[in-house]
């Protein structure tokens, strides 16, 4: 074998050729190294695949538990159930003639999410621009961690603030009949989405190369012109991803909307009336699940709501991954 010949050459006079350690080892000769190497790889692989498997299992479980909602009535009933679920605004699971129309819940979720984005996107993007291009270095070093603390506050604390502080304020100052309503939930969700939007959009704009900024300044552009014409277009994928991540935060949030939205499952009319109470998909699941017997129709209906929600966030997640990937690719090209 080769290692024998390496050993044999040990007494070579030429010191540069004197290799004292064998360069080739078969697994049997280096058993400990071989076993530890493969064992380590296997363990790390298993740990990583556990979380991947968890995602698939969640999908499997949610789909399995929601399918009976459509299939129990037999073939012809499936279409009727689908139509009822997506077009009926009435969610009356405990009525003598129960109705499982999730339209009001879906609209409610989209409603508070849109409301939150209307506030959080402009504020978040302006703050991101300020931090990336305008704020002096020291101020940025202070502001970023403080803003990120916003994301660390438990959502029930936000909910508490919504009920105890914001709701009475809305009632006394804006004259709303109920303080827990769509506006209240939207405002609190906006604050909760802000750290994500600020942080990710700031990263996207900071990542725009210094060369590109210099090119713009060198041609006589002011700071505002540079931000608008160069920095924001170059960082647009990351900025869009920031908005979508903020949107996911808002649409998936449960505790705050449960406490702040008023939980009335109806579509506001007129549609722009933010002072009305609404109910979201998340709050419905959290609120109803405790009193629902397993394997009842209501139980299956709640899982169907969950599946709808999961599909929303899943597609948003895919979209944000795609945009962030595009942003990274753009950065690599520079």
């Amino acid at each position, binding site marked *: 074998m080769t290692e024998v010949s390496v050993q044999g050459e040990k007494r070579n006079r030429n010191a540069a050729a004197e290799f004292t350690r064998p360069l080739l080892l078969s697994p049997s000769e280096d058993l400990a190294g071989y076993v530890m190497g493969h064992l380590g790889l296997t363990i790390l692989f298993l740990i990583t695949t556990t979380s991947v498997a968890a995602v698939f299992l969640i999908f499997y479980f949610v789909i399995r538990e929601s399918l009976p909602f459509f299939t129990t009535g037999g073939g012809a009933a499936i279409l009727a159930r689908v139509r009822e679920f997506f077009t009926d605004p009435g969610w009356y699971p405990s009525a003598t003639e129960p109705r499982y129309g999730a339209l009001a819940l879906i609209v409610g979720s989209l409603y508070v999410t849109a409301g939150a984005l209307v506030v959080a996107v402009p504020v978040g993007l302006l703050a991101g621009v300020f931090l990336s291009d305008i704020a*002096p*270095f020291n101020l940025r070093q202070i502001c970023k961690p403080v803003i990120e603390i916003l994301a660390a506050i438990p959502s029930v604390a936000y909910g508490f603030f919504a009920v105890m502080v914001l709701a009475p304020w809305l009632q006394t100052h804006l004259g709303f009949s109920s303080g827990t309503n769509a506006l209240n939930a939207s405002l609190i969700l906006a604050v909760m989405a802000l750290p994500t939007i600020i942080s990710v959009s700031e990263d996207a704009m900071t990542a725009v*190369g*210094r*060369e*590109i*900024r*210099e*090119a*713009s*300044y*060198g*041609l*006589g*552009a*002011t700071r505002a*012109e540079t931000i608008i*014409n*160069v920095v924001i*277009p*170059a960082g647009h994928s990351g900025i869009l991803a920031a908005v979508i991540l903020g949107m996911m935060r808002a649409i998936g949030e449960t505790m705050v909307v449960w406490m702040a939205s008023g939980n009335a499952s109806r579509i506001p009319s007129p549609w722009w009336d933010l002072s009305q109470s609404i109910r979201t998909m998340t709050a419905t699941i959290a609120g109803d699940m405790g009193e629902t017997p397993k394997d009842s129709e209501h139980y299956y209906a709640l899982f169907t709501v969950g599946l709808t929600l999961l599909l929303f966030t899943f597609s948003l997640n895919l979209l944000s991954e795609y945009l962030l990937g595009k942003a990274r690719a*753009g950065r690599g*090209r520079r």
Partner: protein
Amino acid sequence: METPETVPLKKTDAGHAARPQQFAQAAVTESSEAVISARQFSFFYGAKCGVDQVSMAIRSGSVTAIIGPSGCGKSTFLRSINRMNDLIPGSRAQGVLAVNGHNVYDKRTNLVNLRQQVGMVFQKPNPFAKSIYDNICYGPRLQGIRSRGRLSEIVEKCLRDAALWDEVKDDLHKSALALSGGQQQRLCIARTLATRPNVVLMDEPCSALDPIATARIEDLIAQLKGAYTIVIVTHNMQQAARVSDETAFFCLGKLIEYDRTEKLFTNPSKKETEDYITGRFG
């Protein structure tokens, strides 16, 4: 903070009359006026001194090369001329650096106008992720030119001046990022010319390019000479010898020698210069 940069021009003239004279004799051979003149100019990054009391005068329409080992302050000096160093936090200037007789570090300096009169080409080609056409139009549009006909004229003229027109005339609306490195750099030069500058600063414009692309940029510099005052920082001494009329040698932030290129490379008067150009250090 002391604000020596706001000291009126006249006082500084009187105070340091002796030093610029010394260089004026050596370098400015013809009667053309100095378009850029530094008097006791220093530049600091925090406590670190990047450029140390440099005095030199660059005459209008010439090509001036700045050479020197890495970290000698040549890029810092170049970037001070149109105040690109302002972007670096904690930076500070002292003394006078005048363009067309006006101290650019005066508080009243309008950076937009300064940078349009004193354009810059950077080390790495840095076109915007826009079309070739929009890259050229960036500066003119900032100046308020909106007419399509006028913009197209500018695009054609600048691309011709930058010797790029024949290669890209059919692809004006394609992304500038699809061009080769050498083409991108010529596009960046065209983009700089589009703001109609008097001075073009080039910060190692060929260091990211292959020899063929480099030769084309050098030809371009020779064509632009006279119409523009060009100051070029380069690591490549052959390049400095090929393209420039005058050469300045910087070392450790100081201006060691500044003379006609021919003289500086064949018969340098300072020992350090000779050591550097013969490759004994740096």
